[in-house]
């Protein structure tokens, strides 16, 4: 379970963002909604351990992640967090399967090729395992990105606008896929989006209000 308590982030320009509390149980899906500029990506990065909040705590299975050392943070990111970025990016010099194995290795886990293959199989792209990631179509890239986010069986899956570039059918399919695997591995799924197609399906929603953006006394 992940809980964010009274998170605050100060930008370099003196702009301060306050975030509403968030709770996302394991095995459930939670939507983070908000207009552009409401600090959605910043929140995602804080939850992913990429960015440190100025104030507040992120409780992950009872531990405050904010207090982690750099080393603990690296390991935490690799093992417990799976991120699906808005636009799928990979290490371009490597093949699909190598990219998945890289995720295992960077997290400090043993490389398990068969697990990677199984996952690709589940996502219907097993035939592309040894293809260079540069040769994939946009849809295939999206699937590989999901596979990579799931390869280490993380406790928290963060997805940044995973459906914004997709048509209705594909958007539905990707959502189903994410929810399926999250439920299967008992992970929390947190989707950052402004895609209204998702709001109808997922009940647990937190809206980031632009009003919460405050400018500090100059």
């Amino acid at each position, binding site marked *: 379970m992940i809980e964010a308590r009274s998170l605050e982030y100060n930008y370099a320009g003196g702009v301060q963002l306050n975030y509403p509390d968030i709770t996302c149980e394991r095995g459930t899906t939670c939507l983070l909604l908000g207009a552009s500029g409401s600090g959605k*990506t*910043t929140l995602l*990065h804080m939850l*992913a351990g*990429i*960015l440190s909040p100025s104030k507040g705590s992120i409780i992950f299975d009872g531990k405050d992640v904010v207090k982690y050392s*750099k*080393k603990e943070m*690296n*390991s935490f*990111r*690799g*093992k417990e967090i799976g*991120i699906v*970025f*808005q*636009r799928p*990016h*990979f*290490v*371009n*010099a*490597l093949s699909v399967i*190598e990219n998945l194995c*890289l*995720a295992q*290795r*960077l*997290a*400090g886990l043993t*490389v398990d090729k068969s697990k990677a293959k199984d996952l690709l199989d589940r996502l219907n792209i097993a035939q592309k395992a040894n293809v260079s990631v540069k040769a994939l179509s946009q849809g295939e890239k999206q699937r590989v990105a999901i596979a*990579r986010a799931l390869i280490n069986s993380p406790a928290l899956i963060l997805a940044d606008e995973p459906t914004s570039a997709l048509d209705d059918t594909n958007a539905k399919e990707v959502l189903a896929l994410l929810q399926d695997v999250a439920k299967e591995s008992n992970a929390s799924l947190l989707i950052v989006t402004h895609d209204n197609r998702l709001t109808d399906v997922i009940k647990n929603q937190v809206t980031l209000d632009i009003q919460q953006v405050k400018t500090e006394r100059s």
Partner: protein
Amino acid sequence: MKGLNNFFYFFFSFTWKNLFSRPLNLLLNLILFALGVGLISLLLLINTQVTDKMENNFAGIDLVIGAKGSPLQMVLCNMYHIDPPTGNISTENAKPYLNPDHPLIGNAVPLSIGDNYKGFRIVGTNEKIIELYNAELSEGKMWRGGMEVVVGDRAAKDAGLKIGDRFKSSHGLSNDIGMEHDDAADFIVVGILGKTNSVIDQLILCDTRAVWAVHDHDHEDHDHDDHAGHDHDDHEGHDHDDHAGHDHDDHEGHDHDDHAGHDHEGHDHDDHEGHDHDHSEYIEEKPFWEETGQEITALLVQFRNKKNFRALNLGRNINENTDLMAANPAYEVLKLQGNIGIGVDMMRIIAMIIVFVSALSVFFSLVNSLKERKYELALMRSMGASRLLVFSLIMIEGAFIALLGYGIGILLSHGGMNIFASMLEEEYRYGFESWIFLKEEFYMLGAVILIGLLAALVPAMMASTSDISTTLSEE
């Protein structure tokens, strides 16, 4: 252990794949590194071996005396056997310096140069040349006159000469076809020298008179009967008593009894039918320098006392007061090395500039590649990679390019040396090694990897310190 192996394998394959994903960049960097490294290594190889050869062949020679001309040429011809002679000197002129009682000269080795066998010079001389180069017979015995020859190690191997072999010499110093002394008597191999790493390895040595015999024959167009009458009649009836009257002090250690009982079995005298040989051929005649109207090429001189100022002035005296020329080999070689040195230094500077440019090139291509890979590296960080890991990956790329470039450069230089060596061998019969590795080359390996790491340092720092969040937010 397996984990560690995996770890190295990961670094290696990751670096390799990343470098290979930009093949043209990699190629440029490798070519530059290989050029720089190859040039430096080639210079080292040539310079070390040429210097070694020059020094090995000094052989304690203080003075070379020969015909007037270029002193350097005389030194190169008579000590290194790579240039043609400046000319010949008459025995009359050479005689004073060959006198064993000369107050300043301790040792004078005559050389008569002009013929070759398969490109190996045949040198008419005396047995003192063996001591001069610290050579020893590995097989057979010393020549005792006539057409007997003792062959240097390399000459024996490369020309395929064995004890008992007979061959005809060719006029000139290179292996030109059609220059054989067809009418002259065969040379007979009686001894083979052990390896000395000096120039004597590539020489075929015989008595001074043997060279004269070949040439008298040629030039005066003697027929065999004439020839038979020519030298040998003079010597017939030459007996030990006569000889005894001769100055035996000159020939200390020369055992005449042994000589008389010399075993000629196995010598094929049939070839010499009509020559009317008898054993007088092997009996010491009067010293060759007593012969008039003959010529030798040069004398290699060692002083009795190298510090004697009169000895040091001997060369100048010869040059000023006689028709001969004397040259100090150390001085001539130093001058030559000085001249070559300028070229070598220039090449070395060029090579270092190339290495510097290759470092710059690696630096620029890494910085450039970071622009493309910035997102990729941030992504890796988001997946748990530490700053140190990202830093190391970039550093290893720099070192890897340098190492690979070094490897190619070393291969190129040694391969080039191989070709160069065979050219030199063809031309001068000097053997050069192409697959020896100098300690300087190992130092260079360290230096080159350091340069690669240095070139990667700034890009690696840029990569490891970039803000992940900012990079990932950029689209």
